[in-house]
């Protein structure tokens, strides 16, 4: 039974990261109806920038308090990603708002390829290790092992997600965001600065993504230029699972997907009597998604997207 609980913990850690990234996808989709393929790469950039900053600080100011180092690195990373995302929206997506639906999708793919290869050129092709600044204790909890870092990931993600939900549901800015995702035209007529809101949405999503990237790099101690692609894909799957456009859905979808993957990989052999094994773990995740969509075509919590004008 403690193995099961360990898988649950693994799933929650994985899922928290998925949820953070999924929020970015779902917000953008809710407002623009666009699958932001480049979001995964923004997460990767977050991880790489943080890593580079830490390496720099470690090399030139080794006496610095580790917590300060991490904070500086995190801030640099989050700000870089926000700026990056802002410019992506401004230069690549905004001109295409009136274009056929698939054009910004291709642009997003182009940006994804561009960012990946830029990262390859700047930071090299190898897997990069995270320097050991902290040493994390492993704690035992109900028979399962969990490191301090993993606890931190779950807690931090929960805090950030709650903050976001509070902003979106209870602040003026949040109201403007919800209005824009209901109908851009009407919101514009009522005095909402659509461009600003859209930029803001991208920037927030990027910020969350950067944090996710840093957490992933810290947890697995590796980062490399292609880490964003699969992560982004899984996160988007999670967003769809929960109901695209729906923030709560993204959180739920992310956590669920993490749990499904962990428990699936662990038990798929037992469930199918040894016929299928852990090499089918990705299949498992997709199959669950398909089954859910067959019965609830708009995701678990239902979708919330704008009506097209």
């Amino acid at each position, binding site marked *: 039974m403690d193995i099961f609980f360990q898988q649950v913990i693994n799933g929650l850690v994985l899922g928290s990261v998925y949820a953070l990234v999924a929020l970015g996808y779902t917000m953008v989709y809710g407002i623009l109806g666009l699958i932001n393929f480049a979001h995964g790469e923004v997460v990767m950039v977050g991880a790489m920038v943080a890593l580079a900053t830490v390496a720099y600080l470690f090399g030139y100011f080794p006496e610095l308090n580790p917590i300060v180092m991490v904070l500086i690195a995190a801030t640099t990373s989050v700000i870089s990603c926000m700026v990056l995302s802002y410019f992506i929206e401004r230069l690549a997506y905004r001109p295409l708002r009136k274009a056929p639906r698939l*054009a910004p999708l291709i642009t997003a793919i*182009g940006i994804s390829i561009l960012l990946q290869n830029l990262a390859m050129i700047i930071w090299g092709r190898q897997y990069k290790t995270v320097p050991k600044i902290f040493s994390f204790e492993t704690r035992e909890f109900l028979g399962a092992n969990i490191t301090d870092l993993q606890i931190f990931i779950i807690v931090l993600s929960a805090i950030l997600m709650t903050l976001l939900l509070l902003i979106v549901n209870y602040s003026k800015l949040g109201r403007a965001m919800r209005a824009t995702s209901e109908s851009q035209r009407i919101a514009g007529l009522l005095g909402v600065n659509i461009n600003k809101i859209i930029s803001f949405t991208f920037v927030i999503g990027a910020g969350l993504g950067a944090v996710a990237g840093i957490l992933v790099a810290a947890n697995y101690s590796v980062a490399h230029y292609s880490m964003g692609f699969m992560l982004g894909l899984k996160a988007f799957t999670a967003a769809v699972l929960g109901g695209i456009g729906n923030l709560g859905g993204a959180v739920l979808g992310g956590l669920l997907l993490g749990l499904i993957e962990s428990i699936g990989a662990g038990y798929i052999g037992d469930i199918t009597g040894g016929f299928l094994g852990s090499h089918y773990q990705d299949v498992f995740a997709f199959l669950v998604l398909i089954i859910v969509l067959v019965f609830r075509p708009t995701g678990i919590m239902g979708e919330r997207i704008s009506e097209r004008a």
Partner: protein
Amino acid sequence: MSIISKGIEKIRSNKRILFIGYVLLGIALVSLPFLLSNTVGRTWVRILDFALIYAMLALGLNIVVGFAGLLDLGYIAFYAVGAYAWALLASPQFGLHLPFWAILPIGAGVAAIFGILLGAPTLRLRGDYLAIVTLGFGEIIRIFLNNLDHPVNVTNGPIGINKIDPIVIAGADLTRTHEILGIQFSGAHIYYYVLVLLLMITVLICVRLENSRLGRAWIAVREDELAAQAMGINTRNVKLLAFALGATFGGVAGGLFASLQGFVSPESFVLLESIMVLCMVVLGGMGHIFGVLLGALLLTTLPEILRSTASPIQESLFGAVYIDPEALRMLLFGLALILVMLVRPTGLWPGTTRKQLGNKG
């Protein structure tokens, strides 16, 4: 209408000029492989062969995405099915060696069945949900292909299937060099002609489909599914047909790929390939057959051109290779995608007579 288009119209209506034009085009097509192999090398003829196979794929996806408006991100699965069908029926894997005229129809049929299987659960799904589900299917097929080597060895797993039989006509192996009328035709050259022929047939089929009742039904479903249903179109069958027909083209292309390369492995059928084919369709001019062809030819040859020129340019400009050519070529590729979409969001060569997907006037 500008002067140029008036001019084109005039050319189109003048039968003689048209005829001469076609003859010139025919001569150009026939001599192209020799032109290439004598100037830039035989490798480029092979690259052209693969470009033609991708063109066929793009046309197949064009039916699903361009005509019927169904965003399919897992199209490469049908390519994989066709390729593995050929591999299983004509290689040492099972010891079967069926001739090509038997395998191609079987492969096409199997692919069509998969098309319906994959299409069926997606009928109720809207737009981008469809995308993620088809993506999931593409990955599922690839993972199965990679792992079906135990308990029963069907696909030989990650090692892939090697020594696949090529197309053999009248005892002549088409991937080898043959001499006809004193001219040396290498395998790559012969395959070029076979592929051009098949591609022309494909284009013909697509054009006829486009202008048929089915084609118009697809456009109706694409533009407004509810209205189409209200008009009495059986949207379920229409959509399934789109998937099945698109899959068929993919299956045939897959079989040709397996016979040309002599080897298949799951790595050739990753998600990135599906995305590439989609890019070809959209970049070329979605829905427009010749635009899609252009997109396919450009996107397959451009990376190769970049690959072989990235190092020499850097050497001549900077004296040394600073940026790794592989990274550089993909970088430029991504950049090209972005720029083309910004400058021509409807594609390089969009159709002239019908509205594009979701285009707001």
